[in-house]
Structure formats: structure tokens, C-alpha cells
């Protein structure tokens, strides 16, 4: 198993995530959530950026009404991820319900970086197990023991996630169409940052895929009319 590159990659994502989970545990207890409440959030919410935002706003005196909307805007991209993962999130209803819970940045990126559907499913599940374990153990450590690890930034961990997502995006950039969509998505997100609440720029970037999807729909319509199906993509 340790020679399996997907498992090794999932483990390294888990390690970086655990440090953030410790920070979440510390912040959550500081915001006057109990240790149990903090751990329940990590098990059942399981969306790092949303949880951190939620407890930070409450700690800053924003109240639940102030904390929930930004947390949910950040969680909104998980809906886009679940949409994109339809082949991966298959199986019986209970299994799908369970897999839906672990649809986040890391599991989605790891799944889509794989070449085949079977490999995507496997990468999704392996990453989910590593991430879920790391996130929840880290949360408990932070909530109980407090901050012994310092700021994740001191270890450069804030730079790890964009680097890792770049490594996982690269294999998906097959052809000029995917490349254009990636660049357009990044530009739209950056343009929205100063004017839209956090979370919105990332969700909005998904819209650049709509013309591509419509074009794919038109191609399909032609195939249905009677032309030979295109092989490959």
C-alpha cells in the first residue's frame, strides 16, 4: 500500500489537512463551542473552509445569522463538485449518501486527476478516508490540547494546497478547450474577489464551462441524427 502513489498522495494531503484541523479545533473552542460540538462539526459538516469561517465569525461576535451565510457560500462549491462526480458517486443509495458527505476540494481533485473511472473511484475513496481521519483527529487534538503547533503559515502549509491542486489539475488540461476553460475560470474568480463575498468567485467560475457543455450537447444531437459517433473525448 505504501508503494501505491495514489495512497501516498492522499496521505500527504491528509498530513497538511491535519494541521489546519488543529487550528480549527483551537478556534472553535475559543469561539465557545464545546469539544463535542467542535468534533460533531468536523464529522458532519466536513468542509474545512466553511467550518473555519463559521467559528471565526462567531468568535468575532458576528452571531449565527452572520456566520451561516458566508460558511454556506464557501460550502456551495461542493454542490458543483458533486455534480461533476456523477460517475464516481455511484452505487447503492446508502453508499451514495455516505460518499456525498466526503465531496470536498481534495477528494474531487484527486478523483478527476485519474485517467479511468475505476481509478477515479478508488482515488476518491482513498483520499476521503485519509482526509476524514486526518481532519477529525486534528480537530480533536486542537479542541482538547489547544494550539501547540503554531500557525500553519509558518510551515508554508497555506502554499501547499494551491500547489497540490495545480498538480491535480494538470492532467485534466488535455487540449486547448480545457486550458481555455481553466484560464477563464481563474480570471473570472479574480475579477470577482474585490466585489463578491468569499465563496462566490469560486462557484461563479464554474459558469465558464456552460458554453463547452452546450457545444458538447450540440455535438451529441448531431450524432443522434445519424452520424458516426466520435471516438475519444
Amino acid at each position: 500500500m505504501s508503494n501505491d502513489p495514489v495512497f501516498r498522495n492522499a496521505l500527504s494531503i491528509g498530513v497538511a489537512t491535519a494541521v489546519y484541523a488543529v487550528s480549527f479545533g483551537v478556534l472553535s473552542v475559543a469561539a465557545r463551542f464545546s469539544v463535542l460540538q467542535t468534533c460533531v462539526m468536523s464529522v458532519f459538516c466536513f468542509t474545512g473552509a466553511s467550518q473555519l469561517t463559521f467559528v471565526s465569525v462567531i468568535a468575532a461576535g458576528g452571531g449565527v445569522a452572520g456566520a451561516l451565510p458566508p460558511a454556506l457560500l464557501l460550502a456551495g462549491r461542493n454542490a458543483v463538485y458533486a455534480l461533476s462526480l456523477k460517475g464516481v458517486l455511484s452505487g447503492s443509495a446508502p453508499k451514495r449518501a455516505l460518499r456525498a458527505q466526503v465531496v470536498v476540494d481534495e477528494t474531487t481533485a484527486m478523483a478527476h486527476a485519474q485517467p479511468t473511472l475505476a481509478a477515479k473511484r478508488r482515488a476518491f475513496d482513498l483520499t476521503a478516508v485519509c482526509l476524514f481521519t486526518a481532519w477529525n483527529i486534528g480537530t480533536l487534538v486542537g479542541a482538547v490540547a489547544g494550539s501547540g503547533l503554531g500557525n500553519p503559515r509558518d510551515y508554508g502549509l497555506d502554499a501547499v494546497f494551491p500547489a497540490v491542486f495545480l498538480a491535480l489539475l494538470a492532467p485534466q488540461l488535455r487540449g486547448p478547450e480545457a486550458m481555455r476553460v481553466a484560464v477563464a475560470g481563474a480570471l473570472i474568480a479574480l475579477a470577482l474577489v474585490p466585489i463578491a463575498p468569499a465563496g462566490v468567485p469560486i462557484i461563479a467560475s464554474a459558469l465558464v464551462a456552460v458554453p463547452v457543455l452546450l457545444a458538447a450537447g450540440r455535438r451529441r444531437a448531431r450524432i443522434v441524427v445519424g452520424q458516426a459517433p466520435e471516438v475519444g473525448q
Partner: protein
Amino acid sequence: MSWWPVIALCASAYALKVLGLVVGDRLDRETSERWSLEIVVVPVLAALIVIQTFTTGQRFVLDARTPALLVAAVLVWRKAPFVVVALAAAATAALLRLVA
């Protein structure tokens, strides 16, 4: 702290995940080309990368994360192993902050 904020957060976060799943099923029945929906994730990951690197809150920031991403980009281009990319990015940012 009462439990209802915790329950509200958890329930709505899960509902969003299931929403994507249900909408994906609907679209799946109408369109059968598998890869077409997958492309949705490409702009989102690209957006995530630039936002996590170049912004703090609603401000644009150029700091140690920028050279770290450049190092990562070169390593990805050179097809370096994933773990090497992650460690190099962390080391670049951490060292630059230590020096600064």
C-alpha cells in the same frame, strides 16, 4: 453555545452536497456524455488555485505563496512526484517567511 448553530451548519452543508448529486443525476438522464459534466471542475480548481495564492479575504496579495506556486508549477511541468511538489511549495513559502 447552543446546539442549533452546529446542526444548522452541518445540515445545510450536507444538503448542498446532496443537491449537486441530485442535479447531476437529472442532467445525467438528459445527456449521456460522461466527460462533459466533468469539465465543470476545471475552472473551479483553477479559481481555487489563484484565490488561495493571490488573495487574502477580498484583497489581492503578493507574498511567499506566489514564488511557492511558481516553484510548484515548474515541478508539475517537469512531472515531479506529487509529494515533491507539495513539500517544495511548503519549503519555499516557509523559508521566504523565515528570511523576511
